[in-house]
């Protein structure tokens, strides 16, 4: 067991974890942050995407111990004072989700993409989301949501 201290969605946690525990399992099972989900075992689907120190990370591809001393944001920590994040709003507005399973990861990845490139082209959006799979939407409305959040959807 290794002792870690992490900040998740603004709250501080201290825990003893098994060294092999993945960050995503720590979030889900120890902290009850079940908004972040698991979709694969090969780091291909992106369903587990969170931010670590403000950058998107696949939390199935990182150990909980590696998050020691870092700040993690999940989809549950995006809304501030009951106000949705603009990307959350855009996903709702553009019908960019159906079953919603890929959605937490898609939203986290989209935010990261827009942080890097506030005015992406359609192609840049599509490439930027390449690591996140969605089986329901055909991506059409996800792309639209990112454009809308960027203010560029005309």
């Amino acid at each position, binding site marked *: 067991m290794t002792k870690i201290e992490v900040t998740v969605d603004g709250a501080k946690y201290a825990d003893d974890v*098994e060294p*092999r525990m993945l960050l995503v399992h720590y979030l*889900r*099972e120890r902290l009850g*942050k*079940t*908004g*972040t*989900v*698991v*979709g*694969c*075992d*090969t780091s*291909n*689907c992106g*369903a587990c995407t969170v931010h670590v120190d403000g950058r998107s990370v696949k939390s199935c591809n990182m150990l909980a111990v590696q998050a020691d001393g870092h700040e993690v944001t*999940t*989809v*549950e920590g*995006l*809304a501030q004072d009951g106000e*949705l994040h603009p990307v*959350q709003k855009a*996903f*709702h*507005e553009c*019908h960019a*989700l*159906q*079953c*919603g*399973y*890929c*959605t*937490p990861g898609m*939203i986290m990845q989209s935010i990261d993409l827009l942080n890097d490139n506030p005015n992406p082209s*359609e192609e840049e*959006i*599509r*490439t930027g*989301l*390449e*690591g*996140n*799979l*969605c*089986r*329901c*939407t*055909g*991506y*059409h*409305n*996800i*792309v*639209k949501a990112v454009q809308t959040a960027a203010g560029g959807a005309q």
Partner: protein
Amino acid sequence: MTATQERTSSGEVGRDRRRKEDQRLITGRTRWTDNIQLPGMLHLAMVRSPFAHARITSIDTSEAKAATNVVAVLTGEDVKDEQGSLPNAWPITPDQKAPPHPSIAVDRVAFAGEIVAVVVARSAAEARDAAELVDVDYEELPAALDLKDAANDTTLAHPDLGTNKSAFWKFDSAEAGTGGNVDEAIEKARGDGIVIEREYRQQRLIPAFMEPRSVVVDPTGEQITVWSATQIPHILRFLMAAVLGVSEAKIRVIAPDVGGGFGGKLQTTPEEWATFMAARRLGKPCKYTETRSESLMAGHHGRDQWQKLTLSATKDGTVTGLKVELLADMGAYISLVGGGVPVLGAFMFNAIYKFPAYQFNCQTVLTNKTWTDAYRGAGRPEATFAIERLMDELAVELGVDPLEVREKNWIKHEEFPFITVCGLEYDSGNYEAATAKAKEMFGYDELRAEQQRRRDSGDPVQLGIGVSTFTEMCGLAPSRVLGSLDYGAGGWEHASVRMLPTGKVEVITGASAHGQGHETAWSQIVADRLGVAFEDVEVLHGDTQIAHKGLDTYGSRSLVVGGEALVKAADKVVEKAKPIAAHLLEASADDLEFSGGKFSVKGTDKGMAIGEVALATFAAHNLPDGVEPSLDSDATYDPVNFSFPHGTHLCAVEIDTETGGVKMRKYVCVDDIGNIVNPLIVSGQVHGGLVQGIAQALFEEAVHDEAGTLVSASFVDYLVPTAADTISFDTAHTTSPSLTNTLGTKGVGEAGTIASTPAVVNAVVDAIRHFGVDDVQMPCTPARIWKAIHAHDQGGGTPTPGDAAPHFDEQDVADRTAGADDTAGGAQ
């Protein structure tokens, strides 16, 4: 309450309402089955067979049992007297051969991935670790892997059955009295007409829903509670009770938030059975969540057919007959509705056309692969692919535009309702209108001109235009028809509307959404019907203790069947409220009219909102004599017919003839799905459906090696398209309201998937037809396209560059030797 009534809206149906479901899904406030943690919960891990076919000679569980925090290890031997056989609800013929289907294999495994032992431990990680310690000895048996070989009984998938042939199912229009004799039509065409003969491959696909399947069973308490990531909580409850010998009333099934299904969660699974048996034995809540590789390997697959097709026509292009001979790979077991999937396509090969003679023959075949069952479209994509590919081939033979030969043969709009050669009555449609609109949006003539320019100049990038004018039968289904097809259940749906004293409305539906947006669409329907606010309607579903009755969600049935049940239940509420309102308004019920949520006395300004009637009914202080104090109403609706959406899909692809690379340039579809409840939700269904159909055409295939192991058992190798692989679509609608339900709606859940596959493959073939190509086997990978282009070279051309995933190349070769000769050299 009056405040509520003032917000009363009308015209909800047809509005692009944003979804009610979204709030919890975009904030992570979700209830996936795997989230559930219960006190003392135990976790399961499966030991699975690495062999496609083997005898289990011994299983040593002692080391696993001794591992830390392991509570139990169950083998097939341990549960053989209680596990029964997983159900097959659709035996398509009385003499269908189906091997018993244990959830945990007892002495033999029939596909790689089959469960041979179950480890139960205090944590999932400990269960998985201990699963590695279970020592199973196998004696490998020859495996039946190739579908055509299996159909010849070369190797037996289940030696005890003595054959791999499960069932032969036939429809013949002459025998049924619905059309002519197809063999005569073909014979005649051989003399003085045109005969097109082709063989197409429907590759094996994997539904690949994003949420892996998960099940929790809690045996504490009076009812055993089962949470499952399933599309079919009601069917699961009924069949668990029937097979496992528990009273149905003692089982409660809950499908909480479910992350997609596409048919892949229309199943009663060995994993559900094993978890149930473990929980029952141990008296503790048990959970099993599959990994992605388990999901791809052991969740059911879809498609997997060889299609032999013979189409006859007169010299002017009028089709005179179509004969279909299918081989359908069932995999190792005949699963819930797996045997019936090809039969769902039986009446759709004739599609939108007026064929006078038709015959459908299907042989279902057992192999030692993962079993197959419904995948989005189930039977109908296969049928649509075949006929839409053939119509293109006929157009080439005639030297006319592919839309022209279609129009020559399709049902004209003034001919509806039309009874097809299969005896189905298409209620409404307008193929001319959808096609005209699609052509205009697409810029059809300009693209054809560009194609010609590129041909003439020998441009290395060639343009192909693909057409698909599809229809399908959905809205499953009239119970009598299902009965006549030997399906084990009916096709009705149930709804209840409960009027709460505060004026809010609770709607209970037997449909079980897993991404389709029922909570929103059902609210719109009820808001209109009862004249209450959209926000005041709450839709409950997916828990058999709340929605006690239903037949769940698949086959594009929820709106056209479940929505109609809802309309009927809502109308009953109004009927029940009317005498009470009349009594309270001191008027005769005959003088009342109901509109905009209000009962008014004709010719006066006296009136009362339905919410007020609900409160008065709740108080029950002043009701007419003999009237029960309740407005709540139920309806169970059995559809009178299938639903027949249709549409015209046009696809343009660019093919780099030097590399075989495909780039989708434009995709236009105009779907006629009758009246639309929520255009936003419809657009989502169409986009998602299109990409799944496009993925079959270009990317996806479940590939097995020669030993029968699934090679594409991760998202590295099973190529679910990404955002970077796809484009934005141009979608639109024409509207021919359905005549068979009150709202005039038609199903849309599967339409995109059914229509798009042939549109894309037709485009690919069209782009390279001048190289002598008349087919490219799906998925049309760059390697296959390149080979098709160079198949007629005189020893020229450089060898194919290696595919990104080399095993696809190997499979490619294997498939050709298995008979896919058209792929290699079609254009004779």
